[in-house]
Structure formats: C-alpha cells, structure tokens
C-alpha cells in the first residue's frame, strides 16, 4: 500500500451507559407494580368513570377538594407511579389548572367581599371560590386518567376491550399496531428536521421554526402512510382478517378489580356526601 492509501485519521472511545430504563414507562415510570397498576384495564376504565361522576355532578369546591385529597393521599401512592417523575413531565397540567382557576376568578359572578381590585381585575370571595373549584376539579379529573394511561399496557387494554366490551377486533388490533408506530414517528420527525437543515431549509429563527411545521407535518404524513401500508401488508401476510380469530391472552377479572371499583365508588360517595353535609352540593343544570 502506498503512503497515501491509508492515513491515521483519529480515534474512538466508546462510553459506557449509565442509566438503566425502568421496567415499564408508558407515560410516567412505574416504581413497583401494585394492585392498582395490575388491575384489568376494563376495571380501570370503570373506576375512572365512577370517579368522574363524583367530581362532575356538582361544581362546588368541597366535593372536588375531598376527591382530590383522597386521590392524592390514597389513589396516587397505591398506583406505584414515580410521583417525582410525574411532576417533572406533567408540570404543565397543574400550571394550566391554576391559570384556568385564575381566569374563572376574574370572569365569575362578583359576589361576596372584594379581595383584589386592580383596574379591570376584580376578585371577590365568591369569584375566588369559583376559581379554586375549577382548579381543584380539573386536577381531580385529570389524575385518574393519567394513572390509567401510565399503568396500562396498550396490549392488555386491547385484549380487555375486545373480550369484555366486544369492540371490533379488526379496529382494536389495527389501532394497537398503529399505536406502536408513534415511537417511530417521533424519531422520523427528528430526522426530517435534520434533513431540512442539511438541505439549506433549516429553521434558524423562531419564525422559520414555526413556519416549517406545515411542510414537516406533510413529510411525516407521507412517511406515515407508507409505513402504515407496509404494516398492513405485514399483518395480512400473517393471516389477519381471514377468519374468526382466537386470543392467546385471556383478559380475566380478579378480586383486585372488584376492590378497585368499590374503592372508586367510596371515593365518589365520600366527596358527594361531604358536600351534601356541608351544604355546598348543587347538582349541575339545576
């Protein structure tokens, strides 16, 4: 080999990976499996509906506060989720809830003692209460949904939906397979952004970053259709949609599912009961 054939051009030192991934991380990492996290997805959905009844039937502050306290004190610890990680990833939700409450406090009917008066911003005891009720209520509504989303394996949910709620197999399985592509699309989006930069169409300013979203979304859509078509072909190539299908995973109910639904009912009963006793309960639309 001549002198110019090969040159020493550098060196590489690999780095060892530090972090290990948690066993399960759909939305928020799970610290440990619990009776709640392992409950049947259909039971979880039922529990969410029951909890929603407890908060949605009245718009008073007391029922929502009781529910939120119960969820924070009992529900959240029992879910086994990493609360620190939850706050880091979803901090925007409590912030949004406070903003919604603030807006309500400004807009609501001005009754009771005046607390703040700053030009157009008038807040009275009555409007502050209405605002606080909105903040607490949105948090109490969001929390069960987050817990279900973060503790439920989509495959188990699909099994439950088809086997217990008799949803269409074709629809549920297609949605399940498509949901798996979402991770790929996040990666593709990142690649498309880099590809635009290397072609000279990169977003160097905040404005161009905003205007680049439309062509990027279109490019992603093209990729999504292509991938979707290939996935559909792979599914059909394995006999999908040919005949009545069996389910190797039986979705079963256990005692813990009954307990989950009973506990949810107790939470709703408690929040409504306390509100009725205190006298703040008012059924909506009455």
């Amino acid at each position, binding site marked *: *080999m001549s002198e110019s054939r090969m040159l020493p051009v*550098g060196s*590489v030192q690999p780095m060892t990976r530090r972090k290990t991934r948690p066993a399960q991380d759909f939305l928020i990492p799970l610290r440990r499996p619990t009776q709640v996290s392992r409950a049947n997805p259909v039971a979880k959905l039922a529990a969410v509906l029951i909890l929603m009844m407890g908060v949605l039937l009245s718009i008073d502050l007391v029922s929502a506060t009781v529910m939120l306290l119960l969820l924070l004190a009992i529900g959240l610890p029992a879910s086994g989720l990493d609360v620190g990680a939850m706050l880091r990833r979803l901090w925007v939700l409590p912030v949004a809830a406070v903003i919604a409450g603030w807006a309500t406090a400004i807009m609501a009917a001005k009754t009771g003692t005046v607390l703040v008066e700053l030009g157009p911003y008038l807040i009275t005891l009555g409007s502050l209460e209405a605002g606080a009720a909105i903040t607490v209520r949105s948090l109490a509504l969001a929390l069960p949904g987050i817990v279900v989303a973060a503790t439920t394996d989509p495959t188990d949910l699909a099994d439950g939906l088809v086997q217990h709620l008799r949803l269409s197999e074709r629809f549920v399985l297609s949605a399940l397979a498509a949901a798996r592509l979402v991770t790929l699309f996040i990666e593709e989006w990142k690649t498309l952004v880099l590809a635009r930069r290397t072609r000279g169409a990169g977003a160097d300013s905040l404005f161009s970053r905003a205007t680049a979203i439309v062509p990027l979304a279109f490019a992603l859509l093209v990729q999504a259709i*292509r991938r979707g078509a290939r*996935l559909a072909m*792979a599914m059909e190539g*394995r006999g999908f949609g040919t005949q009545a299908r*069996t389910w190797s995973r039986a979705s079963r109910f256990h005692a813990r599912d009954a307990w989950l639904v009973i506990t949810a009912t107790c939470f709703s009963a408690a929040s409504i009961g306390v509100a009725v006793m205190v006298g703040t309960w008012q059924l909506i639309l009455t």
Partner: protein
Amino acid sequence: MTPLSVTARGYGWTHAGRTRPAFSGLDLHIEAGQRVLLAGASGVGKSTLLHAITGVLPAVSGDATGSLLVGDAPPAASRGAAGLVLQDPDSQVILARVGDDVAFGMENLGLPAEKIPERVRTALETVGLPVEPDHPTLALSGGQKQRLAIAGVLAMKPGVIVLDEPTANLDPDAVHSVRDAVLAAQARSGATMVVVEHRLEIWAPHVDRILVLGPEGLLADGDPNTVLGDMRLRDCLQAAGLWLPGAVPGIAYTPTTRGEEMLCAKDITVARPGAEPVATVSAQVRAGRALALTGPNGSGKSTTALTLAGLIPEDAGTVTASQSLLAGPHRPKCAQPSQWKSRSLVTRIGMVFQEAEHQFLRHTVAEELAFGPRQAGYSKTQIQARVDELLERLKLDRLAQAHPQTLSGGEKRRLSVACMLTAAPQVLIVDEPTFGQDALTWRELTKMFAEELALDRAIVAVTHDEAFAHALSADRLDFNGPSAVPAQENNPAEAINSVHVHDEGGEASHV
C-alpha cells in the same frame, strides 16, 4: 400444514395506472417443499409476485392475467397458507411484546389458545431468538426483528414461506444469522420457500433452484450451479443488477495526496440531543479522501456523522472547520458547524441520510436538485447548469419532471445523493449509502463518489460495506474497540465481516 406447490400459468400483473405490465406470461411450477431463490432486475415485479403468492396484493392495485395457484387454490382464497417476511424490520413488528407478536399469526388462523404458547416457544428457539415472551420488541436489533418475523411466520405452519429481501436492511453480521434462521425454519416446517434477493451468494448454496424473472416470463431457471455456471447467462444477470458470487468490484478511486484538512474533531463527545453520550471521537476529514466510519450498530457512528455534518451539537468539545471550508459566500461567523446557519451549511457540508425519502422536499426531480443551490443564493444560470449536469451524470434526465417519491429505490438513492451535490459542498457525509442497493446502483453510486473525490471534495461514509470503503480507498475510523483504537495503516478493520469479499492483491481477505 403440508407444503404447498406454487403454479403460475401465463400469469402477469399490471399496476393500476400503468400501461405496460410489470411482468407477463409467467409459466412456473414450484414443487411443494422446494427452496427457490427468485432474482431479477429492480422493478421487474419480484415483490409483486411474492405479494400475489401470499394473497396480500389488493385487487384494486392492478390487473392480473392468467392464473396463479398455491396448492390447488387461488392465493386470495387461502390467505394464511403462505407466510410473508418483508424487507424492513421496523415495519413488520406488529405488537409490543415478543410472545404476542409471534402469536399474532396463529391467533388470526383461529388456533386454539392453549396450543399457542408451546408453538411460540418452539418458533423462537428455531430462529435463535431465546428471549422471554414478554421481552419488548422495541428493544430488539434489526436482525433480531427479522428473526422475530420469521418466527411469527414459522409458528403459523404455513405451506409456503415467502421472503422479500429479508436481509437487505441488515448489517453483514446479521445477514448470516437471519439467513440461518430462515433455513432452520424451512427445515423444521418442510414448507416451500421462495426468497427474493439480489445478492445471490447469500442464498445460492442453500437453495434447490434459482429463478430469474424478466419482464416477459423467466430468463433463467435451474439449479444454482447450472444457472451461475452458465457463462452466456452471466452478462444477462449482471445487466439485471444481480450480485454474482465471486464478482469483485475494483478500485474506483485512489487518493494522490494527504489532502488538506477540512474538518477536525479533537476528543469530542457525541450524543443525540437529550440522549446519553455514546463515544469520544477524534477525527480529521481531508479533501480528496474518503473516511469510512465502521463498527457495530449502536457504537455511535451515525451520531458522529450527524455531529461532523453540523446537524446536532457536540456534547463536549468542538468540531472545527478549516479556513478554506469557511471561505465563500454566507461565510459562517464561527468555525463550529453545529452553530452555522442552514444556508451556510448547504454549500460546505452536506449529509445524505440512510432513508432517501427523508431528504426530499419538492415535487419534481429537477426542483429537488435546484433546491440546495437556490437556498445558497446561486444565480439562475448557475443553478440550471448544475441541475442539467447532475441529471445527465446520474442518468435521471428523462425523470426530471417525475415526483421524487415515485422513483424506484435505486433512483431515489441516486437522487438523494445528487440533491446534496448540486450545492457543491466541500464535505459530503453519507449514512449507509449502499444499503440494500443492487449491483447497478452500487456501481453508479461508487462512481459518483469517486468523481466527487477527484474534484478534491471530502467524503465521510458510515458504512458496513467493505467493498464500498475499499473501492474509494477510504481511511478507517473503527468504532469496534472497547478502548481507543487508532485507525492505522494495514488495519483494514478486520473485525468487520463482509459478504462480498475481494482484495485485488491476494492479501488477507476478511470473511
């Protein structure tokens, strides 16, 4: 299920909206249990034929002539009798857990639930994927995903197993393990096997028969020794873009100087944004020389390429551009490419991504080529001259008004390289440019890169393709070693297994 035969009588297929058939007049009989390698030029309809055999070809996507039978029935009526394995590992993982994914096909065939777990275990063992059934499919490598797909098909006990370039998207290490998994699955089930592949040497020693598909029926049909030994056929097979066993691509470019340094990275740490650092790298990119980044998947080759291309920021340290790279219009304010504006980057460092489609922004081939120089602020006449020159060089001139997404795989690959070349960047960085390409496209690409090198441009290539690195006489930066391994003379990356071995001087070949 017992093995099934495949019979075509005057079979042909015309894609919807096309006047000429993809292929026509196909007469063919494949005995039950036979192992067949199906080859042919790009676009001749090999994949279409496989899809037809599997019964997944939608009736609305084109018109069939003649007849095609799997066993005694048309394939659409017996869908599930033939199992299909596709090329792209990511697009055929269906479910999130390994066991569920293997079970998917059996469930679709209505197999009783209690029989499924045992078959899942046997199938995973046969293909050499010894993981727990609840192992996440997301955590599998490309080769493992392909073995998973094979297990899923095997567990269905199909009468025919059809495979569409199952190893084209894999690195050389994975190619043989996936092929062996296919052969083990075929031996276990005794099923008829039809595999499409343009690298004939992967399969030729392991099949009973080679079929070469042409636009009007079969060009060749016989046992591997007869077909490959027929000298009259060789030219025809080579013209079809097939990789013949033992064919040795020559050297396309030899650098004559050490080359001026264009980019320099000294102990930079590379990481994807938001992810952990993967490697600490030192590298020099020199004009008129190719630099091959080699090594196993996940070792940080692509991350390093993106960092050198100024597309992602360095995790620590800086990449520095030379004064001559900085010179010119839209001169960057600093020497660190990751801080440059996009329009400064486009005439200096270009990156070609592994998937060509990611790169396309416009509606016609000509506009696609004109896009880069326009962003860089070239004059209209300059742009036109560059576009015309490249259209001709790449033999894309008759496709100037075609939509980039409608091109064939090889044409897309050539266009994705060409649209980076129109802005004449001094440094071109490419990620696995030859992956899955047939021999014709391979030669075109190698020629293009050699021409760029001769124009004193620098090329950095992430590649598993030993023949490609060799053809460009590339310097090596090896990502293999557990400790620092300086790439040096006479160190042609021994650890890389290459399927297409060659060496012109009878020196050590590395298989």
